[in-house]
């Protein structure tokens, strides 16, 4: 039995290897691909940022008032684009309510707000950098894309205003718990998708983010989603952003020349 299993696995491995090879060679009409080109099309994940990752692994810096200094240009974390399920703990599934699962399955790529250059909301990330500007009373995220935008996180001890109008990024208030920045956000609209697969939410959405600069080059974060309108229980996702150097936030006004939407005809992503 063990022998049979081992042989099956070796066979499966060979098939997987062949599939990989054929995917590489079937394209390009015999031309070798230059390094870094994804044979399935579209390039390589976040390739444009790879060489910009900071090499230093020294300790995280601190501000004059002794708090961890989160300032810097950060890269996107994997798993916060196409399918946020990938950012859950291994083996965990998104606790979607039945209507939310049905809606996710019915949504089409052409209807993704991002395809129409609308904001990503939280926690979805684009393949572009984002920048943290930190002061004792206010932390600002400058977001290069999918839309060129910002978030303000107030640390002045004030609470969320009452009667918030629903918005794409909500209202964020921050506190320090030890070396962790805890960001509490409410006041969301229900228009953005959590990811490319279209995982939905409602205006009841409440997000708690926890940011911790592990060392000079890495920012760890957790995002807890609490939306009793669309999910059966709160759930938490995990990510890590690399510090980027030798680049800056660059302009990205997506609506400038967006020709794509009418050509997005497929059902899969």
């Amino acid at each position, binding site marked *: 039995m063990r022998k049979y299993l*081992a042989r099956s*696995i*070796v066979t*499966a*491995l060979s098939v*997987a290897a062949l*599939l*990989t090879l054929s*995917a590489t060679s079937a*394209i*390009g009409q015999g*031309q070798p*691909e*230059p390094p870094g*080109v*994804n*044979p*399935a*099309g*579209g*390039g*390589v*994940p*976040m*390739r*444009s*940022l790879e060489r*910009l990752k900071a090499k230093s692994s020294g300790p995280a810096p601190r501000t004059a008032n002794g708090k961890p200094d989160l300032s810097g240009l950060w890269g*996107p974390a994997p*798993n*916060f*684009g*196409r399918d946020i399920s990938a950012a859950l703990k291994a083996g965990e599934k998104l606790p979607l309510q039945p209507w939310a699962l049905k809606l996710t399955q019915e949504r*089409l*790529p052409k209807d993704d707000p991002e*395809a129409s250059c609308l904001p990503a909301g939280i926690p979805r*990330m*684009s*393949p*572009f950098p984002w920048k943290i500007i930190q002061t004792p009373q206010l932390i600002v995220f400058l977001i*290069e*894309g*999918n839309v060129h935008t910002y978030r303000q996180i107030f640390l002045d001890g004030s609470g969320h205003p009452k009667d918030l109008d629903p918005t794409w990024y909500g209202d964020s208030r921050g506190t320090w718990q030890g070396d962790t920045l805890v960001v509490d956000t409410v006041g969301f609209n229900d228009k953005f998708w959590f990811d*490319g697969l279209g995982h939905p939410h409602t205006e009841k959405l409440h997000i708690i983010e926890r940011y911790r600069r592990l060392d000079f080059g890495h920012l760890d974060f957790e995002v807890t989603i609490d939306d009793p309108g669309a999910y059966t229980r709160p759930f938490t996702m995990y990510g890590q952003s690399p510090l980027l150097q030798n680049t800056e936030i*660059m*302009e*990205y*006004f*997506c609506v*400038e*020349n*967006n*020709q*794509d939407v009418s*050509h*997005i*005809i*497929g059902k*899969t*992503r």
Partner: protein
Amino acid sequence: MKAKLGLLVGGMGLLVAALPALAHHAFVAQYDASKSTTLHGVVTKVEWTNPHARFYVDVKDKSGKVTNWNLELASPNALRRLGWTRDILKVSDQVSVLVAPAKDGTKMANARTVTLADGRKMVAGLAPDQQ
């Protein structure tokens, strides 16, 4: 045994990682990588714009008929970080472009590598997978 299983899982991981996507729209819903081909032609226009830089290429078929293709690159911010500058492609340049054509049959395609008139080969795409 465990090592073999690990290799198998690793192999499958490679396949999954090969699934592409773009910054703001789903690659596979718009382009068909299985029909990838190389276009040879002359640049007629360059748009250094967001969300994608684009260039247009006149491609002549065997009968002499000329078709103008609309070719999508990554966005200018990503292209700059990949080493492009906006004057790398110029009108009248002769180029060869490895493309994945649009699924809807229009003369649009996602450019993946561009071989420039001087022989340089430029990576044109950007695919977060994160997406």
